[in-house]
């Protein structure tokens, strides 16, 4: 065995101490991360239980009022004008309910891993105009002006290959939020443009904005910034978590910029899809494997 002098020994001991110090520091960071994740999972579980108990208010109550109003219409208890108001009230309640239910089913589909893409040629501008019309009554309730600036349109159209149903769900949620969280009499500004194979759509409101520390959290499921007795807004806190997951499915992202007191801008950017990709992939592959490049397991 070689003789080890004191200097070497000290250097070796020093190095080992240093390594173990780094290991402990890494471990500490990992533990802290784990604690944070643990806390987050615990919260998510408790929010899920809240969701199940809130479902009563969000679904049963509007349904009861729809049933009540419809009953009165059937019994002819209302004259022409009142009847029309009642019909409008039924429509509004049913519209909200339909929106909420679609979100719940979309979240369930995404969490089950069943959400595939069905790609088609879509006119994004027509899709946006359709949504603006569908949400017209909600904007009118708050005297909001919804303006659509189609920067990327040619002849009023903005063709893009994507999954129309998923893109529509993304935009419907962003538009619904922009209306819900806006102040009375303000504006909702929508812009759409293309940039290579990406489509960008931004939806801006003039509400109170979202403080910096909450900007990440709003994309988590069942999260609403106002909860309990202070809660003034409908919904389950699913909208933005769905929006984010759907945007990712469409090969894109959703980002949030906000200035407190001036409003929020949500921008969704998605990548153009190849139509009929499934078919292409399989027909190409079949041959690749037949000609012996692959391995079988």
């Amino acid at each position, binding site marked *: 065995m070689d003789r080890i002098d004191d200097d070497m020994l000290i250097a070796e001991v020093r190095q080992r101490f240093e390594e173990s110090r780094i290991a402990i520091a*890494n471990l500490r960071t990992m533990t802290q991360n784990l604690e944070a994740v643990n806390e987050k999972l615990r919260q*998510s579980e408790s929010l899920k239980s809240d969701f199940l108990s809130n479902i009563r208010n969000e679904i049963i109550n509007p349904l009861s009022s729809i049933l009540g109003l419809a009953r009165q219409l059937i019994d002819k208890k209302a004259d022409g004008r009142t009847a029309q108001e009642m019909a409008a009230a039924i429509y509004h309640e049913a519209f909200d309910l339909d929106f909420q239910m679609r979100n719940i089913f979309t979240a369930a589909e*995404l969490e089950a*891993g069943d959400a595939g893409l069905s790609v088609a040629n879509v006119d994004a501008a027509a899709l946006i105009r359709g949504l603006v019309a569908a949400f017209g009554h909600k904007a009118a309730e708050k005297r909001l002006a919804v303006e659509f600036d189609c920067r990327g349109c040619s002849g009023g159209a903005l063709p893009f290959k994507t999954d129309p149903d998923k893109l529509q769900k993304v935009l419907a949620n962003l538009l619904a939020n922009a209306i819900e969280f806006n102040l009375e009499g303000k504006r909702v500004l929508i812009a759409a443009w293309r940039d290579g194979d990406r489509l960008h759509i931004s939806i801006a409101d003039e509400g109170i904005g979202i403080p910096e520390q909450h900007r990440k959290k709003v994309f*988590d499921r069942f999260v609403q910034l106002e909860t309990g007795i202070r809660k003034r807004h409908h919904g389950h806190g699913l909208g933005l978590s769905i929006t984010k*997951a759907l945007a990712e499915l469409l090969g894109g992202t959703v980002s949030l910029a906000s200035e407190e007191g001036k409003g929020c801008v949500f921008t969704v950017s998605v990548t153009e899809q190849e139509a009929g990709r*499934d078919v292409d992939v*399989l027909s190409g592959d079949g041959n690749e494997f037949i000609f012996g490049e*692959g391995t079988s397991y």
Partner: protein
Amino acid sequence: MMPETVEKTHYLMAGNLFVPEEAHLVTTVLGSCVSVCLWDGILRIGGINHYMLPFWNGEGLASPKYGNIATAKLIERLQELGSQKRNLRAKVFGGGIVLNVKNPFMNIGERNIQLAEDQLKSEGVPIVSADTGGNVGRKIIFNTGTGMVLMKKLTRQIDDIRI
């Protein structure tokens, strides 16, 4: 070669899972993602997932984009179709190294593979074959009717494969 009896095909996207009652040829492309293919030799049915990250950390939705959710759901769905856990066999693919990262905590591919191994072990599902790791992407076709998997390593640099 593919048996010609299976005509139905499905392209599995990242973050989804697929558990059909009828036999399908399921294609998917993996970079650092991992697919667990499960097959029940008694009922002759199978299912496959394709997850991107090992653990759900409470952000966004609890979707099968995360391995701990994806594999648990995969087993659950096969059980719903009548499978007994003891009859399931697993094949594991993917988990390539996407970026040359030195910190072992940061290597997503490696962590994805480890998670599949640990989770299948704790569920008592044996892994009968696997092709994982390395600096390659993989394209696989899983025949859910026979349990057979065809795999091709992709020659492209893995950095180009955004999956």
